């Protein structure tokens, strides 16, 4: 019953998450912070199995901090997202996996661009302009999807075509407008 949203603008990312800590039908408290700052320019909203979420978020937080201390600079959002995704994917294939869904938003200081990544507990990762997790996502995404056509999985507006022959591997452009 949790929900989190995020969206990117020209030079920023906004992340929001609910504050409920609930078990079964009982709400324990209403001032829980489910967004962690993983560095000076990186935020992570997490939701999912209670306990797993906090454990995993702290694990990520400490590891990224260690990376920063060792290398004198923080990981870029893209690298951090890849590392988090790999951690989820590795844990999924272990005896005890973390059931955590994540929205990772950051500002890439090397390229001066905002970045947002959507990840779920199965290790799916996607680089997106806006995203949401939880029941609220059904409502929020339809609100944010100005062009629903583009995101329906049954519409394929373009194909990527690659050929291999004696010349080696290459990519060919296919005009889909015909």
């Amino acid at each position, binding site marked *: 019953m949790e929900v989190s949203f995020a969206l990117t603008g020209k030079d920023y990312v906004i992340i929001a998450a609910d504050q409920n800590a609930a078990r079964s039908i009982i709400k324990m408290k209403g001032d829980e912070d489910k967004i962690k700052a993983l560095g000076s320019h990186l935020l992570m909203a997490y939701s999912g199995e209670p306990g797993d979420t906090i454990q995993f978020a702290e694990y990520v937080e400490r590891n990224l901090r260690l990376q920063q201390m060792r290398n004198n*600079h923080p990981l870029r959002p893209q*690298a951090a997202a*890849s590392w988090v995704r790999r951690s989820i994917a590795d844990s999924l294939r272990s005896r005890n996996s973390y059931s955590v869904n994540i929205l990772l938003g950051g500002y890439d200081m090397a390229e001066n661009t905002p970045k947002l990544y959507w990840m779920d507990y199965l290790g799916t990762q996607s680089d997106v302009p806006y995203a949401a997790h939880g029941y609220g996502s059904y409502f929020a995404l339809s609100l944010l999807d100005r062009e629903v056509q583009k995101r329906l999985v049954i519409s394929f507006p373009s194909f990527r075509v690659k050929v291999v022959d004696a010349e080696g591997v290459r990519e060919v452009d296919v005009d889909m407008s015909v």
Partner: protein
Amino acid sequence: MEAISHAGTVLGVLAADGVVLAAEKKVTGKLLDLSVTKEGGYGGSGEKIYLLTNNVVVGVAGLTADANSLVNYARTAAQRHLFTFNEDIPVEQLAQRLCDLKQGYTQYGGLRPFGVSLLYAGWDPYYQFQLYLSDPSGNYSGWKATCIGANNGTAQSLLKQEYKEDIKVEDAIALVMKVMSKTMDSTTLGSEKLEFATLTLDAETKKPRAKIYRPTEVDALLLKHGLAKKEDAEMK
């Protein structure tokens, strides 16, 4: 290490828009089979200069067998970083990984250290172009222009005299050629004695582009800078 002071000279110069590496080859001779180096591989003749990843080229001085082992280790480390973080390994981190390994061999008994010094020419989005040097003890340092191998003292002082801030790659190539011609034992330079590489940014993609020169390209470059062998110049 003793072996390194006798090894072929490797020098590197950091420019504003790229890095240049040059190395003196020691294993030469009329009977040496160089047919593969002319067309196969990714350029170079595989004695002194190696491509570690997209964004790092390395020049080695010392025991060649040890160097091969280190190059193999570095390539694995770089690919492992790409696998976990989906980004090219930052240059300093790659240097650190190798230095951690090298340091280990100075500490534990029973084994000898790697008799290799390395020059790393690289680019990453964090610090752009970089030039690092590492020695067998596991120390590493960043440089604007430096040198390892035989006559490194002479080359170092020459570089110190001639290096200018904000030097461009074209000028850096000329500088490297000049210093190389003065420090090498032989009076004439040729592709059988020289390896050469540059690392620049692709103007379109903004991605690093490493170029290890083929023997013919090295000769063309020497000719351009008026350092080619006499008979070569006459033949052209």
